[in-house]
């Protein structure tokens, strides 16, 4: 047990910080829901960052840290599935990936080359061809799309489906962890500047305690995620996804409450994180689904 980053991990995270620096702020003239980041995606591609998990010195744990770090950015780029799930697929399946669950609109489907199609307990893979997808308008801060006709799906074996579901859970938790971190930081900034009754909002204990609880929950999500990525255990993955979706439900509510009407505007960037989180809350069966999976895995020998 040693939580110190290796020199390779430190170097990678420093490089990611430098790469991310130009993308830290929302463009002031952007007032939409999903902020696309093609230049960010291209830089990640050029730097071969999507293959972090395949490098023995780095592995899935470092990939999870990278997913989390990049989710701090206000831009929506298909990173989590590529970094954490794509390594589990054969070479014939190309990134970007999209997740289409039970016929609902899927994140990044319009730009994906491969779709993971989830139907109940079954998972299949489909190549996404141009013209097969239509974009869907939504208030989620991801670009959403829907198949315009039933895709050709290659079914995964039960074993492969279970493995993919595990890594989907880890990717989900890593992305939520980063999004929560950024949303909390954005809210802290507001509470430190905004004054009411002659004081900064952040000096009121009623708000301070709620924010502190949010921070503790989000930190727990991060630790469970990193452990799951390191161990690749089914139970750890389910616990991480459960704690992520469970905590996020409460945290997102609190953060919007703290920002008041400002958090309802598209001028403030909060929704660029919270409305990505909201899109993730329903995935893979939602928190109820994760809880049942976690209980099955973790209490099997109880």
């Amino acid at each position, binding site marked *: *047990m040693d939580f110190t980053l290796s020199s390779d991990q430190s170097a990678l995270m420093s490089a990611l910080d430098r790469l991310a620096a130009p993308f830290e702020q929302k463009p002031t003239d952007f007032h939409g829901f999903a902020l696309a980041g093609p230049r960010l995606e291209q830089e990640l591609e050029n730097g071969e960052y999507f293959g972090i998990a395949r490098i023995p010195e780095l592995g899935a744990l470092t990939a999870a840290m990278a997913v989390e770090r990049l989710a701090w950015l206000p831009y929506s780029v298909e990173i989590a599935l590529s970094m954490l799930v794509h390594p589990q697929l054969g070479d014939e399946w190309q990134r970007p990936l999209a997740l289409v669950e039970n016929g609902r609109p899927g994140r990044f489907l319009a730009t994906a080359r491969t779709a993971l199609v989830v139907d109940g307990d079954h998972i299949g893979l489909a190549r996404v061809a141009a013209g097969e997808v239509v974009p869907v308008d939504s208030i989620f801060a991801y670009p959403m799309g829907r198949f315009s006709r039933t895709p050709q799906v290659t079914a995964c074996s039960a074993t492969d489906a279970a493995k993919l579901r595990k890594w989907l859970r880890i990717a989900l938790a890593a992305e939520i962890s980063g999004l929560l971190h950024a949303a909390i930081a954005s809210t802290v900034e507001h509470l*430190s500047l905004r004054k009411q009754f002659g004081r900064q909002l952040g*000096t009121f204990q009623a708000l*301070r305690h709620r924010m*502190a609880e949010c921070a503790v929950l989000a930190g*727990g999500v991060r630790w*469970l995620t990193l452990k799951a990525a390191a161990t690749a255990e089914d139970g750890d993955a389910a616990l991480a996804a459960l*704690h992520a979706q469970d905590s996020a439900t409460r945290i997102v509510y609190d953060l919007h409450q703290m920002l008041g009407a400002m958090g309802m505007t598209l001028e403030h960037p909060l929704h660029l994180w919270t409305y990505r989180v909201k899109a993730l809350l329903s995935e893979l069966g939602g928190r109820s689904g994760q809880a049942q999976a976690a209980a099955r895995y973790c209490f099997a020998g109880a």
Partner: protein
Amino acid sequence: MDFQWDAAQQEFRTTVRTFLEQHLPADWESLAHGPGSETQSTFSKRFCAQLAQAGLLVPHWPSRWGGRDADAWTAFILAEEMWAVGEPRGGQYMNVNWIGPTLMRFGTDEQQATYIPPMAGGQTIWCQGFSEPEAGSDLASLRTRAERDGAAYRINGQKIWTSYAGHADTCFLLARTAPGKTGMSIFLVPMDTPGITVRQIPSIIGEGDIHEVFFDDVRVPAGALLGAEGQAWEIARNALSLERVGIPRFALAACSLRRAVSALQRAGRLGQGAMEQSARALAACEAARLYSYHIVDQRQHGAPTGPEASAARYATVMAERLAGDFVVEHCPDALAGSDPLLLAHHQRAIVAGIASGAAEIQLNLIASELLRLPREPR
């Protein structure tokens, strides 16, 4: 970053578990109820002496004081295993975690020679005399006074909520030697000193756990002062930082949760709602565990403990609450005589956010020091 235990750590955990299997009596779980009771206090002295003989009481202490210079992980693995079975060391966990190390840092040669060997041998029980009727979270308001009287101090005042005081040999006492925050000092006071009266407070948390302690013209020699006059704040902060993550409450919470789930499974009563609720509680326990590991890892690397210790503490409070609530909702018979270990857990869980400093104080620290929110006006 590595989440795996190395071979030596795994071996140590196995050693501790084997010791527990061999030395805990068959009726241990019924003793676990009431950690400050006479039965448990007597048991803890016998058990801790056995632990000491096996080199498992204070392995992380310096060899000079009966330890073997083991690292922070060793101390924490030991604590996890002890708490997971209901803490058979009783109140002596405090000696091991923070009283001993605090005396090693701040004590005189005489104080160390007097007090540390009995701790290392598992033969002594201490209590912590901090809280007072008018000074709980606001310790700076304490009123117990220690006045210099020639070569002695004369102590007058009252402590409250003092755990283990009924059977303690010595009190780690906080008293005022001068006005203001800098006028507080620590004294090491034998509990059989004339003028000390202990009154047990009947409570939900078990027989003999909390007490009032009255000091009426209690005379102690000047050598009872720990450190210098006015150094209490520094000493107490140091002690509390050791205490804050010293108790792996999540280990007993997770163990209790597994036990409750197992009982429900056997009875065919683990419905979907209970199943989901148990998983949520387990996730909170594991989050608290990893938070605490982070703090242990900081200690292991000699890094100062920051506000993350408060986050670890609060994560543990959340986990205790969820695990405790699960038992109350789904296994209420455990609190009515069917499972003494689950009852013992419940009694410990309900004070998780109160003992060692109120959880709300931790939230304030997290807000100011971790989130960097502006501080409240005073």
